């Protein structure tokens, strides 16, 4: 039979028969101006002539009933305290892995492996020296673990203790040192388990709290929606161009602290560039004095740090990956500074 036919059907298998039918439709409609049309995608509104249509907005959240990226930005899970028999108080978090079809760009669904329903998973926050428990239940059809960065015993490292589907594992450790850490599944093939979405951020605060600021978490990632080993979309906090369509609101002179983590799979590095400003940079957040005063930071996968800045003038400012390719594939946002 037809190779061409089979090729077509391969594609049809992925994109659905409707697309195939539409392709046939194009054949007959080429010269005829369509009577109806549906907008898709969005043309970048910045750097173009004024009045250019912005197009379709980013989806408001990845899936119904899960947190939207605006809330995710400032949502720090504190867990709940459990008192043990010996009187010790333990901070406990619950993580559940389960598959979910999430929207990663306007109209594009990705069959993800989520933690508590989103990619990235929730931002966990505790204080240095506390006993922390992460109760992980695997609600997916594949084995998973939660591998933690930081200092802890071997059995709390989430590598060899495979958590089979339906099973539960409790990671218990003393939070040390303070800083910002990624957590992620460590089952082989690792590329697959990470690119499917099993990761998030763990923040360990120093015993003496940092100065008050407007705090945000930004986890940089990519989505390989056609599974060819390359990302089609890049995001912060899970939806391409989300913060372009729903800008982050801050005030003039308001101190801002960003916990930045890079979990981008397939690409060697990712980066963040802040427009019209400079920030103090604390690599890993493990030291209290900044090492750099810059407007751009570059991170490899798993690398992270803390940014501190405030805006002097009101207005709209871009922030994006300083790899133009990533910026144009969804890793661009706007900070809106008001008086």
């Amino acid at each position: 039979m037809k190779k061409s036919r089979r090729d077509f059907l391969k594609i049809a298998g992925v994109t659905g028969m409707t697309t195939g039918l539409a392709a046939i439709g194009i054949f007959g409609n080429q010269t005829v101006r369509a009577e109806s049309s549906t907008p898709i995608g969005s043309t970048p509104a910045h750097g173009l002539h004024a009045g250019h249509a912005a197009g379709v907005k980013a989806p408001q959240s990845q899936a119904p009933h899960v947190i939207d990226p605006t809330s995710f930005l400032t949502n720090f899970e504190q867990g709940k305290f459990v008192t043990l028999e010996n009187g010790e108080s333990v901070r406990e978090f619950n993580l559940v892995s389960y598959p979910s079809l999430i929207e990663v760009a306007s109209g594009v669904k990705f069959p993800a492996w989520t933690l508590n329903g989103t990619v990235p998973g929730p931002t966990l926050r505790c204080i240095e020296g506390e006993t922390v428990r992460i109760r992980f239940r695997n609600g997916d059809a594949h084995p998973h673990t939660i591998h933690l960065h930081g200092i802890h015993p071997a059995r709390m490292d989430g590598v060899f203790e495979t958590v089979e589907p339906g099973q539960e594992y409790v990671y218990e450790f003393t939070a040390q040192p303070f800083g910002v850490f990624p957590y992620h599944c460590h089952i082989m093939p690792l590329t697959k388990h990470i690119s499917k979405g099993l990761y998030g951020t763990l923040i360990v605060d120093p015993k003496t709290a940092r100065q008050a600021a407007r705090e945000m978490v930004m986890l940089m990632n990519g989505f390989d929606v056609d599974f060819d080993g390359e990302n089609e979309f890049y995001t912060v906090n899970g939806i391409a161009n989300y913060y372009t369509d729903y800008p982050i609101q801050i005030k003039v002179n308001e101190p801002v602290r960003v916990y930045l983590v890079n979990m981008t799979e397939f690409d060697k590095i990712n980066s963040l560039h802040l427009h019209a400003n400079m920030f103090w940079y604390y690599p890993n957040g493990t030291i209290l004095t900044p090492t750099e005063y810059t407007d751009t930071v570059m991170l490899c996968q798993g690398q992270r740090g803390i940014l501190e800045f405030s805006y002097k003038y009101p207005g709209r400012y871009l922030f994006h990956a300083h790899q133009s390719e990533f910026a144009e594939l969804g890793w661009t946002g706007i900070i809106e500074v008001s008086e």
Partner: protein
Amino acid sequence: MLALLIYSFESGVLLQVPVSSIPVERVDIERISLRPGEIIANLVNSGATDVEIAQLQVNDAIWGGTVSPSNVIPRLGKATLSVQYPWIELEPVKISVITSNGIKFEGEIAVAILTPEFSLQLLYVFVLIGIYIGLLPVFLGLGWYPILKSLSARWYDFFLSFTVGLLVLLGVDSIKEALMMSAEAPAGFNVTLLVVFGLLASFISLMTIGGSAISSKSGVARRGLALAYLISLGIGLHNLGEGLAVGAAYAVGEIALGAFLIIGFMTHNTTEGIAIVSPLSSEKTSLKHILAVGLIAGAPTIPGALLGGFSFSNLWASLFLAIGAGAIFQVVFEVLRYMADSRGVLSIFGDLRVFLGLTLGMLAMYSTSLLVTA
């Protein structure tokens, strides 16, 4: 003399051609099947030397597996690679084997689904596929017989030309398919040449056997019937190849045989039935013969789908499509000769009915092909 020559080269008496230090290796991954948590790949060494499979990568990550009977595969030999791997449904799976000389060969499944294991239910599914895309459409086409027959005898040439138009496109399509599949077959078997051989051999054999039967001084009725049998034989061989390919594509999840595609195949292959009964429209033919030509043309899709579903090979599919194409072109030749008869071949082209028949026949084959391609 030959022995002497071989001895001379072997013993080094004659000038030796310097041997390249890098052997030309080639491994083809012929078929990948998926079981729960396991990938099985059929490897064929189609290169010039024995190869040793040293390493394995799944989706570009180093992985472990077993090769049986041995990881050293002799030239033109086969082996089975088995890998315990948690493949994910509906995502691609890529297998790369790396030889001891560091040469990498890849095979991929575009959309992973569980490969159907042999079962009575699956047997039933493949028989059903064969019936839907081969047998049923051919008989739907044969159903036009009474209509064709009720028409005035002056339209006889029109329908014969219509058949020629259909068959020419079907033949060209078969060659295209055969060549495309031959490109995917293991290189060591030179399948492209095999396609040319199959095409010409079937054309020439049918010229020798069938041609003599038709050109004998039997009556017009007998010749129409003989033509119908020849056409159904050609189409039957084509359908065997098509069944092989559809069965294989279904088994590895490359096609979803939905209602749309089934209807497409039915419409497309109905034209095959019309092609068969056209030569019979000028005479009275018993139901027995109609049934027989229908079975010869349509039934081979069933064993084709079964064979393709359970053990597909590009080599056999190419060969059957080529043999079918040769048979189809031989029939085209016979029908033209039959139409020309006393008039001489070139004279038939002056006829408006012949022009309309040829053109509409080709258009019918082309437009219905759009229902199964894109």
